[in-house]
C-alpha cells in the first residue's frame, strides 16, 4: 500500500497537518456540547447585562442616548478580543492537559503549523461564541451590530489579531512555566480592559496612563467604534495605527512562542507536561 502520494507539495503537506490539528479540536467541540454552550453562554450573558444597562442609561443619560447600542457593541467587541485570546490558549492547553505535546512533536508537525492551526481554531471558536449574541441583540434591544457596516469587519479583525497575540504570549508562558500558570490565560487579558477604553474614551484615563493606552491596538479600535456610532465617521487614521501595532505585536508574540518552544526542547518540557 502506498501511504504517501508522491506528488504532494510542501504546501499541501503543511495544509494537511494544519487541517489535522484543526480536526483534532473540532472533534473536541463536536463531542462536548457543554463546551459549545460555554462558548455561546458568556457573550450572550454579557450582551444581556449591558443591554439592560443601556436601557437604563437611555432613559437617564443624554450621552448614551445619542448612540443607542454603544455599550452593547463595546461588550460584543470586547468579547471578540477575549474569545480570540482563549481560542488560542485553550486548544493549546488542551494539548498540555492531554500530555499530547510529545506525540505531536515527534510527528512532522512544525511549530509554526501548530500556531497556524491555533489561529484558525481561534477564529472558529470566536465566531461560534459571538454570532448568537450579536443576533440576539436585535430582537431584545433593537441593536443591529451589523449596522456598523464594513467598519465592523475592520474592528473584528483587529481585535482578533490582538487576541491571537495575547493568546500566543500567554500560551508560551504556560509552556515555559507549566500548567500551574494556566490561570493567566483566563485573567491576563483583563489587564487590557481598563486601558483599551472599551466603555469610555481614552481621555477619561489619567494623563500619565493615556500614552500606555495608545500603545494598544484595542484603544484605537474602541475609539474608532465610538467615532462611527457617535459621529458617523470612519477614522482611517485610527484603523491604520491599530493595524501597524497589531502587525508588530503578532510578530513579537509568534517569535516569543517559537523561542519558548525552543527553550522547551532544551529543558525537556515537551515530554514532561501534563496534569
Amino acid at each position, binding site marked *: 500500500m502506498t501511504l504517501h502520494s508522491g506528488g504532494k507539495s510542501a504546501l499541501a503537506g503543511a495544509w494537511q497537518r494544519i487541517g*489535522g490539528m484543526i480536526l483534532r479540536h473540532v472533534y473536541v467541540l463536536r463531542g462536548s456540547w457543554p463546551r459549545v454552550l460555554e462558548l455561546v453562554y458568556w457573550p450572550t450573558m454579557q450582551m444581556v447585562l449591558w443591554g439592560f444597562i443601556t436601557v437604563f442609561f437611555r432613559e437617564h443619560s443624554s450621552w448614551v442616548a445619542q448612540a443607542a447600542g454603544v455599550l452593547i457593541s463595546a461588550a460584543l467587541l470586547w468579547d471578540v478580543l477575549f474569545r480570540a485570546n482563549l481560542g488560542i490558549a485553550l486548544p493549546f492547553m488542551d494539548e498540555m492537559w492531554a*500530555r499530547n505535546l510529545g506525540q505531536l512533536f*515527534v510527528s*512532522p*508537525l512544525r511549530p509554526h503549523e501548530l500556531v497556524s492551526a491555533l489561529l484558525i481554531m481561534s477564529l472558529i471558536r470566536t465566531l461560534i461564541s459571538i454570532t448568537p449574541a450579536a443576533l440576539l441583540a436585535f430582537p431584545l434591544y433593537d441593536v443591529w451590530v451589523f449596522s456598523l457596516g464594513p467598519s465592523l469587519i475592520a474592528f473584528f479583525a483587529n481585535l482578533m489579531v490582538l487576541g491571537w497575540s495575547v493568546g500566543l504570549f500567554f500560551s508560551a508562558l504556560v509552556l515555559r512555566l507549566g500548567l500551574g500558570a494556566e490561570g493567566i490565560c483566563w485573567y491576563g487579558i483583563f489587564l487590557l480592559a481598563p486601558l483599551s477604553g472599551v466603555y469610555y474614551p481614552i481621555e477619561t484615563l489619567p494623563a500619565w496612563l493615556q500614552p500606555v493606552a495608545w500603545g494598544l491596538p484595542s484603544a484605537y479600535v474602541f475609539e474608532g467604534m465610538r467615532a462611527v456610532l457617535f459621529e458617523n465617521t470612519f477614522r482611517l487614521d485610527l484603523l491604520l495605527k491599530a493595524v501597524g501595532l497589531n502587525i508588530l505585536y503578532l510578530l513579537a508574540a509568534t517569535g516569543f512562542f517559537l523561542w519558548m518552544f525552543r527553550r522547551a*526542547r532544551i529543558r525537556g518540557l515537551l515530554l514532561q507536561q501534563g496534569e
Partner: protein
Amino acid sequence: MSFETQSPVIVAQKLSKRFGPVVAVDAIDFTVMPGSTVALLGGNGAGKTTTLAMLLGLLLPSDGEVRVFGEDMARHRFRVLRRMNFSSPYVDMPKRLSVLQNLTVYAHLYGLDRIKERIHAVCEGLNIEMLLKRDLGTLSAGQKTRVSIAKALLNEPALLLLDEPTASLDPDTADWVRGYLESYRAAHGMTIMLASHNMSEVERLCDRVIMMREGRIVDTGTPAALIEHYGRRSLEEVFLDIARNRRIGADNGVSTAAQ
C-alpha cells in the same frame, strides 16, 4: 544478520545532556544498523528516555550530535520524522477523542493518503477494530498500549522508537505485544530501538543491548554475548551486576545472594 555494507540508521556521537548540574547523558557514542532491534537497558535515571528524546529531536543535546538517516536531528529533523515514529505509555493522546478520531488526526499529521484504509489495516493487525468508536480515556492500559502502537505504525515507519513498550501491562498482554512487534518487524524490516528495564522483553526482541548507567554506556553486545561475558545465566543477572557496579567475575557469594 549482516549489516556491514549498509549505512547506520542512527549515529550518536559524543551525545550529552545536562540539566543544570545534573548530567543525564554523558558523551555516549553508538550506532544502530538498519533492520536491527536495539535496546537501551538501564535502571531508573540511567539516561534511556533522555537518549530516546534526543533521538526524536524532542530534546536538544547539550553537546554532541545525533544523526538519523544521515540527518542532524537538532537542525533537520523534519526531513526524517515522516520515516520514524514513537510509542510510550508515558506520552498520551487526547482521552476525550475516540480511537478513530485520534488515529485520523495523526494520519493527517503524517501526511497519509487513503486514511480510512490505513487505519483499518493497522487496527485489524492489532486486533483493536472494535475499539475504534470508543473514547481513548475509557480503555484499559493494555488497550491503550495497542492504540499507541497503532499510532506508531500508521506511517509504516522505517525506524520505530519505543519507550518501555510493555510497562504496566499484564504478562499475557505484554507477551502479545512483543509477539506482534516481532512479527511486524520480520514482515516490514523496520529498525527498532527501545528503552526498557524488562529483561525478558530485551532478550526476546533485541539483537543488541546497550547497557547504560548514570548517563554512560557501560557495555554493549548481543544478549547472549553479554550473558557469557559476565558469566551469568540471564540478562537480569547481568543487569544487576551493572546496576550495582559489580565487576566481571565477581565472587560467587554476591552472585548467590542476588539469586
